[in-house]
């Protein structure tokens, strides 16, 4: 890692320092040491001509499921981080709903060791809030923090017990850990499998009302205000949740949120049009067109902080079941960047610096991890982007072990062109 690397002539987009223009980036000993036009690089530095490409701080996907340990047939830390690198991400934060659950430092250490061996992307483990995700006793936040966990979450299910949630928000303050909530009032979602609305009505499918998310978000925001804790709302899906979060932020509370590319680009009408294709089933479900449009406005006006994939691999056999029987979740590591470049930046919804903010600076800030910036002293993590390359989403070509995407066949303009982690150019096998 001692070899120096200089990236020459790219368009550097780094909202953390208000930079969008042609510049060079020098990385030495794994960290950025200079960023500017016409840099003097040491003689021995490796020179990479990146003219024609965009250079951004390494993208961070703050919500993925790597499935290891326990469900290696869906994904492994190696295949998942390969998918991350292929998708332009230099770091991912992985959810604890593995088998066993990551509620113990030994699991966090295992994940970090596996990630180091794979060497494709940084991996930030997220600890469970409660032991075994059972919603009864708190996991050891402090020990998990020491082992390397960056947040706590019971993602996949909510922390539904209000008293326990209150304690989690209070206790996490000792370690400055955000509590990432999968906000869902389970009694309201019941047996639902898609958004409750006109399309679930026509299909006779049990619906999940938007109120299932909103009721839990409202409760959580009250508890956040009450405790002064740090609350991060995972995979926001409704217009009302957005308004609740907006209000809490305006009230000065420590609230952040993320949204997935699929909730920004798809709605329940697409589920209908797919003929109930299991690759359109996820949690929270694809909501109404109005919800989708509100979320898009929310990333543009800053009410939503981050975009995360909620990469949730499932084996093709599991998605061969019918829609109602199939598991929730879609993969996203290898599609999120191109989707955002084409459908958000390309369509003028947000500009490129804002996208970099959503995918890099904001996740770094929320998780309290280094990165998200190319100012000297930052980690030497860089994502290279080719804005002109047109790609077709081809699940068969995914590096992930799973293929479950609702975007198969989409043609997108703009694609990742490589990643650099700690000054090391990531080569994919």
């Amino acid at each position, binding site marked *: 890692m001692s070899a120096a690397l200089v990236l020459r002539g790219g368009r550097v987009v780094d909202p953390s320092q208000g930079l969008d223009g042609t510049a060079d980036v020098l990385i030495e000993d794994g960290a950025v040491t200079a960023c500017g036009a016409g840099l003097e690089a040491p003689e021995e530095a490796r020179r990479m001509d990146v003219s024609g490409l965009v250079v951004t701080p390494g993208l961070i996907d703050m919500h993925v499921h790597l499935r290891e340990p326990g469900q290696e047939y869906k994904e492994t830390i190696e295949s998942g981080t390969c998918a991350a690198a292929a998708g332009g991400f230099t770091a991912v934060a992985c959810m604890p709903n593995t088998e066993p659950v990551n509620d113990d430092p030994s699991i966090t250490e295992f994940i970090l060791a596996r990630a180091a061996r794979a060497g494709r992307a940084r991996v930030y483990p997220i600890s469970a809030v409660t032991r075994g995700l059972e919603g009864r006793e708190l996991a050891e936040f402090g020990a998990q923090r020491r082992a390397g966990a960056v947040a706590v979450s019971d993602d996949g299910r909510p922390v539904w017990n209000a008293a326990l949630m209150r304690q989690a928000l209070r206790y996490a303050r000792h370690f400055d850990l955000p509590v990432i909530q999968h906000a869902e009032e389970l009694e309201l979602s019941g047996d639902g499998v898609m958004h409750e609305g006109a399309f679930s009505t026509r299909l006779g499918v049990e619906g999940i009302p938007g109120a299932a998310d909103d009721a839990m978000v409202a409760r959580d925001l009250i508890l956040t205000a009450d405790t002064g804790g740090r609350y991060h709302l995972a995979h926001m899906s409704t217009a009302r949740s957005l308004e609740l979060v907006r209000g809490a932020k305006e009230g000065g509370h420590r609230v952040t949120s993320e949204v997935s590319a699929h909730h920004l680009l798809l709605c329940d009408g697409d589920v209908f049009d797919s003929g109930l294709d299991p690759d359109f089933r996820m949690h929270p479900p694809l909501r109404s067109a109005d919800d989708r449009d509100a979320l898009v406005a929310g990333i543009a006006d800053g009410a939503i902080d981050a975009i995360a994939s909620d990469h949730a691999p499932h084996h093709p056999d599991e998605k061969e079941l*019918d829609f109602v029987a199939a598991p929730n979740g879609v993969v996203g590591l290898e599609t999120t960047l191109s989707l955002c470049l084409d459908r958000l930046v390309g369509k003028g919804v947000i500009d490129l610096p804002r996208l970099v903010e959503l995918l890099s600076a904001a996740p770094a800030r929320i998780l309290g991890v280094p990165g998200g910036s190319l100012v000297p002293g930052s980690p030497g993590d860089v994502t290279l982007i080719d804005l002109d390359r047109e790609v077709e989403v081809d699940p068969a070509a995914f590096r992930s072990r799973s293929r479950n995407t609702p975007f198969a066949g989409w043609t997108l303009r703009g694609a990742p062109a490589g990643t650099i982690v700690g000054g090391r150019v990531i080569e994919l096998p």
Partner: protein
Amino acid sequence: MSEHKWQRGDLLGVAELSTEEIVHVLDTAESFVEVAARPIKKVPTLRGKTVINLFFEASTRTRSSFEIAEKRLSADNVNFSTSGSSLSKGETLLDTTRNLEAMAPDLVVIRHAHPRVPHGLAERVGAGVVNAGDGAHEHPTQALLDAFTIRRHKGRVEGLRVAIVGDVAHSRVVRSNVLCLRKLGAEVTIAGPRTMMPEQPEALGARVAWSLEEAIAGADVIMMLRVQLERQARASFPSEREYFEFFGLTAGRLQAAADDAIIMHPGPMNRGIEIASEVADGPWSVILEQVANGVAVRMAVLYLLAGVKSGEGSA
């Protein structure tokens, strides 16, 4: 007999059918009604054809109706009732399909608790697929037999006022019926307790009423839906007594309907909950005719689909 040339190899839902196709099925069914009156109730139409009745969900009436229709057409039929077995829980559609294909059926009649499972099956098997009910989505042969029954009584469907009352949210009968009756030109009103109505009932394409009285005022046809008593546990209604009080069809309430209104029910009935016995057994009731017509309509469907799948064209 209509001039329509039948070309459909599967019957998955009313949503896919054109008005001409619906009329063609009803016309074809007319010719099968008299088979039930023969001393030997059998025609050789489907001799040598294999029909599999694949029921992933308990059903007595619909399955029996299909079975009788198949036997009267001289088809060889086999029943797979897999409710509660491993097949219904976790076997992939692909495996189910491959197992079926290996038995080389000509037609598969399928009922499943999940919407669009028949559609998925039809995409993957060569046999003709008949949807005998997929969750709360569609039940096309029920809608066709209901339309057939209405047409036999009223001489037409177009312009009639039809009220459908009950657990609309969870009824496949209502979805297929609204589609079918609207395509045939009827005015359809749906009603039920708010806790049993879907989130956006108007999406079904019918007029929405919020009381039984409003729904049946001036109606030519009243269709009462079965109340699933287990819904009571899910707080869809507080008690059977209260349901009957507000949404049960009684002779007194029936006064608001047209004088010659007919009463229908897809069965099985809960007497004293959604319908009073005096109505179910009264002169307005055509409930047993629905059952009889079900066989004729299903014979017509099987006959038409088999004709396409064996490449012989159709009547």
